[in-house]
């Protein structure tokens, strides 16, 4: 009996070792690799990545897959990319977007560019952080229209997702929280810094005389007493990021149909105030404003120059800006508007809209019409 028992113990040990090896092959070391963010120093470091969602290559890759995943919508046809198409700097070219229920969204789809530096997302700034942002369009009945629970259940039917969640978050248990975290990680990588304006900022491009005039006008506040002409755009769209995180009523309406930030804060002084968006890739993101009312940049310039509507909450910085002593509007010349337009065209970044890292990872689907 004793003789027989000893070899059996040895065999058990060998079997255990073999099983351990087999298991270790099935689940390779899950430690995800850190994702190194690459951005120009002139964008500055004022951003926060949540401590509980550090960026990893696996997390970003999963987020990209989910960004293009139709299973996350109620009718299995809508993805994040439906309203945020890379070729249009992650907008959809429409004033309002169509949701799964066929209704239109309340506001125009925003460009997903350099969101790493945005702290309060949406036109009204209601979401603090990209994780909190992502849940809104996913679950809104007029957008993708599906609860996180249903999305998770649908993803669980795909074994490859279990593996990818394990690689990104160390657990194959697909959860709504990790779904949002992965999407946020991918969105933080959408950095646009390859435009002609960037090349100029890096000293790699000599702008034309008209472009230089445009840059100067854009960034300068007018001071007619000192004979300084300016378009004052930089007050809100200053810094190389071309936005400062502000909420302003830019004089679209005397009685705004959409109360904007007031719906979030409940304060009357926020009526008709909306977040200042980036102007990066602005030539690609028409139509313009929160309701897509302007089809062209010329219309936008004409608005700021001569059609600003007075109201109790109109930004004083817009109301006060003029190029004529005692002037009631901005009073730029047609030539100056042309110069500004040429500067805005400098902000188009073809490397951003063609970056394969941001495209649909499922080539076959993206190749379909």
């Amino acid at each position, binding site marked *: 009996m004793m003789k027989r028992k000893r070899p059996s113990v040895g065999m058990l040990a060998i079997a255990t070792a073999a099983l351990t090896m087999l298991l270790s092959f099935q689940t390779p070391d899950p430690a995800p690799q850190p994702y190194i963010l690459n951005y120009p120093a002139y964008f500055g470091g004022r951003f926060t990545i949540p401590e509980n969602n550090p960026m990893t290559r696996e997390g970003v890759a999963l987020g990209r897959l989910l960004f293009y995943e139709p299973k996350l919508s109620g009718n299995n046809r809508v993805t994040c990319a439906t309203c945020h198409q890379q070729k249009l700097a992650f907008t959809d070219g429409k004033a309002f977007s169509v949701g799964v229920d066929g209704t239109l969204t309340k506001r125009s789809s925003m460009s997903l560019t350099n969101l790493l530096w945005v702290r*309060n997302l949406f036109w009204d*700034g209601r979401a603090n952080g990209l994780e909190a942002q992502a849940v809104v369009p996913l679950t809104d009945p007029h957008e993708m229209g599906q609860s996180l629970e249903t999305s998770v259940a649908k993803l669980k039917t795909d074994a490859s997702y279990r593996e990818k969640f394990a690689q990104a978050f160390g657990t194959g248990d697909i959860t709504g929280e990790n779904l949002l975290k992965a999407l946020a990680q991918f969105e933080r990588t959408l950095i646009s810094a390859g435009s002609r304006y960037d090349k100029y900022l890096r000293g790699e491009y000599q702008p034309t005389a008209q472009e230089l005039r445009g840059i100067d006008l854009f960034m300068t506040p007018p001071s007619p*007493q000192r004979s300084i002409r300016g378009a004052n755009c930089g007050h809100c769209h200053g810094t190389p990021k071309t936005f400062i*995180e*502000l*909420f*302003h009523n830019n004089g679209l309406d005397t009685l705004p149909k959409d109360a904007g930030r007031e719906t979030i*804060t*409940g*304060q*009357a*002084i*926020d009526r008709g*105030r909306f977040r200042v968006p980036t102007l990066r890739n602005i030539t690609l993101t028409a139509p313009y404003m929160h309701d897509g009312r302007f089809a062209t940049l010329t219309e936008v310039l004409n608005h700021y120059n001569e059609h600003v509507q007075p109201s*109790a*909450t*109109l*930004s*004083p910085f817009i*109301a*006060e800006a003029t190029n004529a002593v005692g002037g009631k509007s901005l009073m730029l010349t047609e030539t100056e508007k042309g110069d500004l337009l040429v500067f805005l065209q400098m902000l188009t970044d073809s490397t951003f809209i063609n970056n394969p890292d941001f495209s649909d990872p499922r080539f076959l689907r993206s190749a379909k019409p």
Partner: protein
Amino acid sequence: MSKKLCNPFLLAALVLASIAGHAQPKPSFRVEGEVLKPRTLTQDDLLKWKTAEVKGKDRDGKEHVFKGVRLVDVLDSAGVTLGAKLRGENLAKYVLVKAADGYEVIFSLPEIDPEFTSQTVLLAYEVDGHPLAKGEGPFRMVVPSDKKQARWIRELTTIKVVFSKD
């Protein structure tokens, strides 16, 4: 008293006043962060305090008289480390002031504390005897020694004391 309260007109007025009060809260600003007593202050609160006046040249290039309370008194009321306590690591604190539109500026505590500076940084609610204009008030910072008015923050909503964590 009870008879007065039974007056239906007075009751209606009281109900309406309370509804109006709920619909639109009185404008206020918040003092928070590294403070002993975070607090929300309205103009009614400030009117009970000692007033201060400063003269300063606004963006229009003209000199105006601003009335309000000293920023140092606002911070002191929330228990911020000022005066004798403004030393050592407390000198690595800064004051982040935010406006309704999201605009933000910072001050260091010694720029505000009268033991360090002879200038008065004012939290203003009046200019030349009138309430501050819409888009400017009800609360605005006035920093007379700043030649540019970029820190004369309008529509002030939050004063946050923060430790530099660098």
